[in-house]
């Protein structure tokens, strides 16, 4: 049995996306910059994908820029926006729970003369709104917020935050990293006041190596990759047409039967958390206090539908991970992106987690393909393995 509960790391490519990918790789493999028929055909795939994505966001196709994925989109949004507007203002605000692909570009900007402020979060990962608003200054240029946190699945009230921030300063530019939210939420940047939006293909059953950045009309950004002037000069380099076509297909599929799929993930999450939270010395992360002890749906819906972060006191996450792997269940310790570093997780530190628990935290992340049987089996295995693993520990 293979139960894949690491969908926040990456997802399985859908059949539709795979077919599109192969079609463009083997049949319609022209370069969209070529003048001939094959170039035109390739360009059509891009237009089609841009149209699908634009429709899903209710924006214009020309506002979609294709990149190599979430990391590049975040870099382009932050560095590109800062460089294009540096004469206007040089203060940037973000949160303490961002992904490294937001955090590191901001560190780079800080080293190059920009001022960066970090807004704190509460113990469930929710931004402390007043503290965020207090950071807005005369020279604030840009605010970068994470929609759904990749490590613990907490969600920010993006529309409310955008509205309030723009009330405080009209020309503030807002970037949202929606890598984990896209496909789990309906996001309409124009209504919500989002100027730049990052998302990625491989988190929504598309291939790796493709992502996009929505850039609102009128928001100026500079390129970070220079060359032949592709995509209006903002992202040079021959477009990844197979990836783009497959991304379009994946976006189309992810929003089909959307409400039912999301509702199902929530009910699986509820079941999982209800069972696992009853075990001894277990902490559920990224969930607001009002969810406890019953994880009522109304409260649970304030968190992401697909991510469950759990700390099992007294068991090292790596050991638990491999023990589950042995049972055919694949999960992450903390977040896959940061699990190779021995440094403590940024998000878990920001929510004030005890250092001992950090090393005991697992992330279970679902997709629309996750079934109830899989969740039942996982609950059963967690219950069975936990006492065994607790029996053998490093004595302190």
């Amino acid at each position, binding site marked *: 049995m293979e139960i894949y509960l690491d969908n926040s790391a990456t997802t399985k490519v859908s059949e539709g996306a795979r077919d599109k990918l192969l079609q463009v790789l083997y049949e319609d493999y022209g370069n969209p910059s070529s003048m001939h028929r094959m170039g035109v055909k390739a360009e059509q795939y891009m237009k089609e994908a841009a149209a699908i994505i634009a429709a899903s966001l209710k924006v214009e196709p020309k506002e979609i820029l294709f990149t190599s994925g979430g990391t590049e989109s975040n870099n382009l949004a932050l560095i590109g926006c800062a460089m294009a507007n540096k004469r206007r203002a040089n203060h940037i605000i973000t949160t303490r729970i961002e992904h490294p692909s937001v955090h590191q570009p901001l560190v780079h900007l800080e080293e190059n003369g920009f001022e960066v402020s970090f807004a704190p979060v509460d113990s469930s990962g929710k931004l402390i709104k007043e503290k965020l608003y207090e950071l807005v200054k005369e020279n604030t240029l840009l605010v970068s917020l994470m929609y759904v946190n990749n490590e613990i699945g907490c969600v920010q009230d993006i529309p409310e935050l955008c509205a309030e921030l723009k009330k405080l300063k009209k020309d503030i530019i807002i970037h949202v990293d929606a890598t984990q939210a896209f496909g789990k939420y309906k996001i309409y940047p124009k209504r919500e006041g989002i100027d730049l939006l990052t998302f990625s293909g491989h988190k929504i059953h598309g291939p790796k190596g493709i992502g996009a950045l929505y850039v609102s009309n009128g928001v100026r950004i500079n390129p970070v990759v220079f060359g032949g002037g592709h995509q209006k000069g903002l992202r040079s380099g021959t477009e990844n047409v197979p990836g783009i076509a497959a991304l379009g297909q994946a976006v189309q599929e992810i929003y089909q039967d959307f409400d039912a799929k999301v509702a199902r993930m929530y009910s699986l999450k509820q079941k999982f958390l209800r069972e696992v939270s009853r075990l001894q010395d277990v902490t559920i992360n990224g969930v607001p206090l009002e969810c406890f002890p019953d994880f009522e749906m109304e409260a649970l819906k304030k968190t992401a539908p697909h991510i469950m972060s759990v700390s099992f006191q007294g068991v090292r996450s*790596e*050991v*638990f*991970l*491999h*023990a589950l*792997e*042995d049972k055919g269940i694949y999960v992450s310790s903390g977040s896959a992106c940061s699990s190779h570093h*021995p440094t403590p997780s940024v998000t878990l530190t920001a929510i004030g987690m005890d250092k001992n628990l950090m090393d005991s935290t697992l992330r279970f992340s679902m997709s629309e393909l996750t079934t109830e049987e899989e969740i039942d089996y996982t609950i059963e295995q967690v219950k069975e393995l936990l006492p065994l693993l607790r029996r*053998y*520990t*490093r*004595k*302190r």
Partner: protein
Amino acid sequence: MFKAFLIKYAEIGLKGNNRYIFENALRDRIKEALDPLGDYLVSKEQGRIFVECPEGYDYEETVEALQRVFGISSICPVAVIESSQWEILTKGVGDYVEAMYPDRNFTFKVEAKRADKNYQYTSPEICIEMGAYLLRRFPEMKVDVHEPSVRVTVEVRTKCYVYSIIIPGPGGMPVGCNGKAMLLLSGGIDSPVAGYMISKRGVSLAATYFHAPPYTSDRAKQKVVDLAEKIAKYTGKFKLFVVNFTDIQLYIYDQCPHEELTIIMRRYMMRIAEKLAEQEGCLGLITGESIGQVASQTMQSLAATNEVCTMPVYRPLIAFDKKDIVEIAERIDTFETSIQPFEDCCTIFVAKHPVTKPSTKVIKRSEEKLEEKIEAMIEEAMNTVEVIAVG
């Protein structure tokens, strides 16, 4: 310019009647090292080995491969002159010097050897005449027969060979001429170095790694395989035995005092490694232990782990400081791999204060508590061992 290499060896030249065994082994090891790179002709003649290179071979790559063959003391890149006719020979040697040393402000000496005893000049005469020729052709050069900065060696056979560069080899003895030993390979910095050092004395290797899933990950195992591959660049192919040690470890955890866990565990590792070594026809065990480095490597702890096997245990690093071990690890390119942060089975349950001066008597008494199941568990571990071909 170089079409061949002259390989010199030191120690094996000292052997008596069985010298040919060492020479053949060295020739075979050189063949194996060069085989993946192309069609080299390796031949044995009069106290050295001669490697002729194929058309279009890569010089750097060839030298690097030769520098990993134990038993080689030096490697001389050789230019070949097709005829021993004096005019052709002198011109060839002159052209060689011209190409090799664009700045000719240096002292030199010619050394000569001749295989053809009927040649028109004796060896000392070749030196004198060749020296004179070179001085005429390159007036800036000066002779210094005592401490020349360049020694131009000319060998006269049917063809002639000239060389002046000597690249040091790794030394040691060719692998395979001194039996086989079982290396306990952990994934740390020391054990790969220990394996390298013993192998350098001509010993071929087998290795054992103790894996403890789920407490140690597949990446930790992969790291050990990667290390084995790095050592195999020197030692040639060998077998890596991966023993699943989890059940034994947990059993010890359940039955024995926690501070003795590491010592008892290591005693069982030695026992299992010895069994595998016997099966493989090994004549000894190799560990990377060094006195006092950690609690399990004090003199008392070493005595306690040593006691369980009858096979000799070779500990080439026993008197080495860590920094000296690291130096070798860096040189043989295992260091970067060794420091990847994956837990190995020695550290997962380590006590906060493990015993540092275990008494063998006490340890034996603790081990009595394992009597019920341990033999069956060892047998199970032996039966389920995974064998990985390395190199």
